[in-house]
């Protein structure tokens, strides 16, 4: 398994989909719009304060205090932007997605992700707009309403005014369709590269396993049988010994083939689907595993396989590294998304960036727009969670596979 360092599965933005903007929600009327304008006017002070503090903290980063301040301020800024994004969405009658990079890991890593996110810079730009012209527009709407004699102007003017502001808000606070598609293409290219890499490495591993194991042993079997054939008349005792030897070797070869096949596609997964195969995995574990499996029917075979190997990898890690006394697995499919959680009470310290196991399975899940995150502070507990969008498999009849 290999994944190049610049194509990490968590760079993939599964939340950015071209179909995220759903038209059809009703646009807000005069009263609601005026209400939103009032909220926007009231939020003027918090926006100004946040903007100034962010600007000051950015300078203070050089003396470390700024990092601490930004860790608190950036989420606040996102909160303000999020509020306006949803108001703009309601005014325009569409739902506006928040295209931030997904957060993974601890507070420092999150801060780094936030600072590197282009959306953060757009949020800052938006604050400049919201403090100036945006504020003036909202204030005007409120004043027109409160001015009584100006009510007729309010009646006709408030909707175009606020829709205008909302349009600008939307333009800054969300990415356009083209941009989203570009990001989507980027994400798909990245995850495809990882998957291709991964499967090529898998094929190499399988080739090596077959070559070093069963192939060599079968050659030895045929050699033993040939010798036995030769000695049959002259030294039946030696011939019998050779045949016995061949039998033992062929048994070992079969055992090795079984291991290889289990690594490709476990038979119990083909037979029983995800829930059955995970139960079988749990039975083989030394550490007791508590199961909560709610996966009715069968899922598409590639998803079943990817999730099965996710569980297998995590349980193997639990057995090998965690020193845990208990572990648990939960799988739940609600018809559109398969959610999985797996945890143990061991010593923690698992890292998505270390080793090849976890990054490999994260890459496999990313191929289905799945996400995986690991929480494993030193001292434990370790919890791995993942989500894979998938619908139930159309055909429940398993594929044709010879025994």
């Amino acid at each position, binding site marked *: 398994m290999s994944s190049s360092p610049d194509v990490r599965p968590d760079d993939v933005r599964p939340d950015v989909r071209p179909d995220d903007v759903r038209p059809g929600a009703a646009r807000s009327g005069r009263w609601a719009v005026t209400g939103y304008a009032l909220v926007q006017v009231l939020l003027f002070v918090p926006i100004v304060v946040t903007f100034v503090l962010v600007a000051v903290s950015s300078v203070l980063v050089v003396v470390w205090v700024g990092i601490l301040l930004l860790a608190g301020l950036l989420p606040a800024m996102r909160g303000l932007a999020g509020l306006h994004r949803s108001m703009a969405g309601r005014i325009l009658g569409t739902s506006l997605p928040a295209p931030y990079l997904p957060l993974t890991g601890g507070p420092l890593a999150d801060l780094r992700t936030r600072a590197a996110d282009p959306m953060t810079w757009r949020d800052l730009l938006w604050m400049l707009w919201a403090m100036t012209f945006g504020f003036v527009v909202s204030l005007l709407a409120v004043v027109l309403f409160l001015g009584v004699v100006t009510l007729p102007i309010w009646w006709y003017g408030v909707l175009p005014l606020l829709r205008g502001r909302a349009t600008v808000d939307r333009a800054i606070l969300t990415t356009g369709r083209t941009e989203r598609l570009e990001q989507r293409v980027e994400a798909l290219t990245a995850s495809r590269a990882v998957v291709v890499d991964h499967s090529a490495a898998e094929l190499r591993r399988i080739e090596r396993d077959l070559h070093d194991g069963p192939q060599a042993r079968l050659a030895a079997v045929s050699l033993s049988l040939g010798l036995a054939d030769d000695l049959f008349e002259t030294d039946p005792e030696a011939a019998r010994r050779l045949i016995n030897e061949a039998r033992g070797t062929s048994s070992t070869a079969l055992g090795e083939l079984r291991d290889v096949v289990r690594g490709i596609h476990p038979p119990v997964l083909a037979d029983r689907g995800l829930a059955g195969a995970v139960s*079988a995995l749990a039975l083989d574990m030394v550490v007791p595993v508590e199961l909560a499996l709610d996966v009715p029917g069968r899922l598409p075979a590639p998803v079943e396989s990817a999730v099965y190997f996710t569980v297998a990898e995590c349980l193997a890690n639990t057995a090998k590294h965690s020193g845990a006394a208990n572990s648990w697995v939960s799988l739940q499919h609600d018809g559109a998304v398969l959610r999985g959680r797996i945890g143990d009470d061991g010593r923690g310290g698992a890292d998505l960036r270390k080793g090849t196991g976890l990054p490999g399975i994260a890459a496999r899940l990313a191929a289905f727009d799945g996400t995986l995150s690991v929480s494993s502070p030193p001292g434990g507990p370790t919890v791995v969670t993942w989500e894979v969008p998938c619908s139930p498999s159309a055909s429940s009849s*398993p594929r044709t596979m*010879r025994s």
Partner: protein
Amino acid sequence: MQPLRVVLAEDHALLRAGLTQLLEAKGFTVVAAVDNLTELERALDDPTAEAAVVDVRMPPTFTDEGLRAAISVRARRPGFPVLVLSQYVEQLYARELLASGEGAVGYLLKDRVSDVAEFVDALRRVADGGTVLDPSVVAAVLDRRRDTPVDRLTEREREVLALMAEGRANAGIAQALVVTEKAVAKHINSIFAKLDLPTDTDDHRRVRAVLEWLRI
């Protein structure tokens, strides 16, 4: 002694022919050698059939129809002896087979057939109402139960426990470990005392007690 009338289900033609030849040579009568689920079910309804040797994976879906057929025939004909063969052994399947009725059931890797005497012995034990489990299943279970009283057993006693769980009688255990039957009986008494199990002279009941204790 009348030869035992056996139904054989194996979809691979070479193995089916080989197994038929082996069984006939060892004094069994193969009443039907089938290669798919429909024919297997028909053959198992034959009231003169006395036991079945069944492959797990077969047409039409090539998954676990052999196993399901084995479990369903034991529901229709309680205690009908079935020996299930597979390229893979799964604890999950072992559990399901053991739950399908008291005794007269076996679950072995296909490669065990290469030891003809062992295989024939296993089939006879199953037909006789015994329980036969593949050594790899037993080994996995013993491995899992390391922190339990199994820990208090000596190395030799653990070997005897494993062979008992595989379904062997005293004579079979003595032969496998190259010791006397008397020595085996002594080990068994010691094991049962350490695991707090009631001693039982009946082989089949003893195997079941061990399997139940191991919670396979």
